[in-house]
């Protein structure tokens, strides 16, 4: 029974991660936009939904007591707008500028979460976030399973929608822009406009994931949204293979499994006072893993990224062969 409950809890967390990874896959896998501040967008979603749905609180702004679904929608809207603004500022420039700006967004969101007490509750965060099945909390197993059902349903919807999108004309334009920007532009597609759209949709999905997480745990604090979150999600996408939605989901579950497993292992192997150091070793291992995968298997498990330079080389080789043959 306990194992089943833990399994449900584990899968719920992993699926929330998959949702973030799906958003990142839209931004990076489909169109090649590098977002190093995704923790910021997840935090925006979590805080928006928390503000909209918590009961009235005298110590800070709001607590509007709205239904949870309104909170989720609000999170997507605010996250999408934040991503669109970031995109509009940087997407006409070199791709690195987007990376640096998103990094800055995450830093600023972290600052606001920590310091704007009136809005975010400061370092103590926001508690009493309504949970979808709060009434079931006495029966942990039932509670965990019903949460898992909700999160699976949302992830499945996002997955199917993204699959549909990537096959739609819109998705084909995005892929065309990634593969050959000049050709796509010459066909009359505005690169910047499409990129801002994709970045905004990705941001909205990340914000939704943040909101789901907030309502699943019932409590949020700035510490949940440190750069390590960004890093974890990137590893999940790279392991799964950027460009593939299925890879994003499976990569998330796999990496979260490794992460949670090694966390349990360190807590068993190391004395309590050494745990913090052991945890940093865990991050080293994952960081090295990211670099190794980038070096030896850049397509991950399910990646579909065709690499133009390689194709170009092959084309040259074949022409060279055919010319030598003739």
């Amino acid at each position, binding site marked *: 029974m306990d194992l089943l409950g833990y399994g449900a809890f584990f899968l719920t967390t992993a699926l929330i991660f998959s949702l973030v990874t799906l958003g990142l896959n839209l931004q990076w896998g489909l169109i090649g936009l*590098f977002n190093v501040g995704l923790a910021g967008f997840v935090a925006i979603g979590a805080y928006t939904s928390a503000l909209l749905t918590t009961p009235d609180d005298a110590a800070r702004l709001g607590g509007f007591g709205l239904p949870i679904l309104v909170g989720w929608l609000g999170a997507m809207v605010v996250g999408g707008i934040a991503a669109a603004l970031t995109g509009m500022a940087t997407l006409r420039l070199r791709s690195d500028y987007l990376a640096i700006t998103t990094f800055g967004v995450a*830093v600023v969101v972290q600052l606001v979460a920590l*310091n704007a007490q009136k809005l975010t509750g400061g370092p103590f965060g926001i508690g009493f976030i309504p949970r979808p099945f709060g009434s079931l909390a006495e029966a942990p197993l039932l509670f965990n399973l019903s949460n898992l059902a909700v999160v699976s349903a949302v992830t499945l919807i996002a997955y199917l929608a993204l699959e549909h999108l990537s096959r739609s004309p819109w998705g084909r334009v995005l892929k065309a822009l990634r593969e050959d920007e000049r050709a796509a532009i010459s066909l009359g597609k505005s690169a910047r406009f499409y990129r801002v759209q994709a970045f905004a949709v990705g941001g909205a999905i990340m914000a939704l994931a943040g909101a789901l997480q907030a309502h699943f745990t019932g409590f949020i604090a700035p510490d949940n949204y440190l750069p390590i979150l960004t890093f974890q999600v990137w590893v999940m996408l790279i392991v799964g293979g950027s460009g593939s939605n299925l890879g994003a989901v499976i990569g998330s579950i796999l990496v979260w499994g490794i992460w949670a497993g090694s966390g349990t292992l360190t807590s068993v192997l190391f004395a309590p006072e050494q745990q913090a150091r052991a945890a940093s070793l865990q991050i*080293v291992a994952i960081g090295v893993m*990211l670099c190794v995968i980038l070096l030896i298997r850049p397509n991950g498990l399910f990646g579909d990224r065709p690499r133009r330079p390689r194709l170009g080389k092959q084309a040259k080789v074949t022409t060279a062969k055919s010319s030598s043959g003739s």
Partner: protein
Amino acid sequence: MSLQFVVDGLLTGSMIGLGAIGVTLTYSILRFSNFAHGDFMAWGTYATLAVVSAIGATFGKVAPIAPLSFGWPLLVALVIGMAFTAILALLLDKVLFSRLRSQGQAIIVVMASFGASMALRSLLEFTFTSRPTYFSRAIQIAMPVGFGIRITPDQIALLLLTAVLVLGVHLLMTRTQTGRSMQALSQNAALARIVGIDVASVVRVTWVIGGALACVAGVMIGILVQIRPFMGFDMLLPMFAAAILGGIGSIPGAVLGGLIIGLAEAGAVQLIGAEWRAAVSFIILMAVLFVRPIGLFGVRER
């Protein structure tokens, strides 16, 4: 408002500027924004600290040079630390960045630098724990120099050191063959190769300069503030903002950008409070990207 913020700003600006030189060089010559640069700073500082304590262990307690808080051990250690950081940068390039660069996807290199940054920082945290340490716990008396400004001997020495280093790098870039090769490579890589510039050696020089200056900037933070594994990571946004504000590839620009951001941060600390300090560089960054994305001294990319 007291004018003290000018001194504070110039000092913070020197740290940012020295770091931004490395960022701007990597960006213009190797064409990627190196997220591990902040961690070069931290590694250099910890290496310097380790050498200082090693010297302290062999030679016993060394008296500091008259008005300063540190003696010759720190100066020797700084040089060793600079060499160490340069080697670390070269090593990381050899193991990771150069291989990914040869695959021809610039943004993958950025991502790898992000992963390397995480690993490097956590390795420091593992070895030295996240508790802050110091080069010296001695308290220096700040001398009043007029206009309500006070400055310590350490601060004067470090400002002078920054000026000397910046001048040195500037002369290297403009007056020597190596520097001219670096500029050529940053302006037109293909043409630079055709005229026979040794790309590999230019890349090496870039990492050596960037790494060594990162170490100096880190040690400055260590002397004036404190030493933590996150010290470099927290400088990343100001450094990027300074490099972009000054114009990618421009060394005077990076330093000027650093000074502007340092002064703006110090001013903001006085006006709205220290907790919002980190937002200053983001606001400046966004303003530059909207108004003049090539920065103060930048050239339009071809």
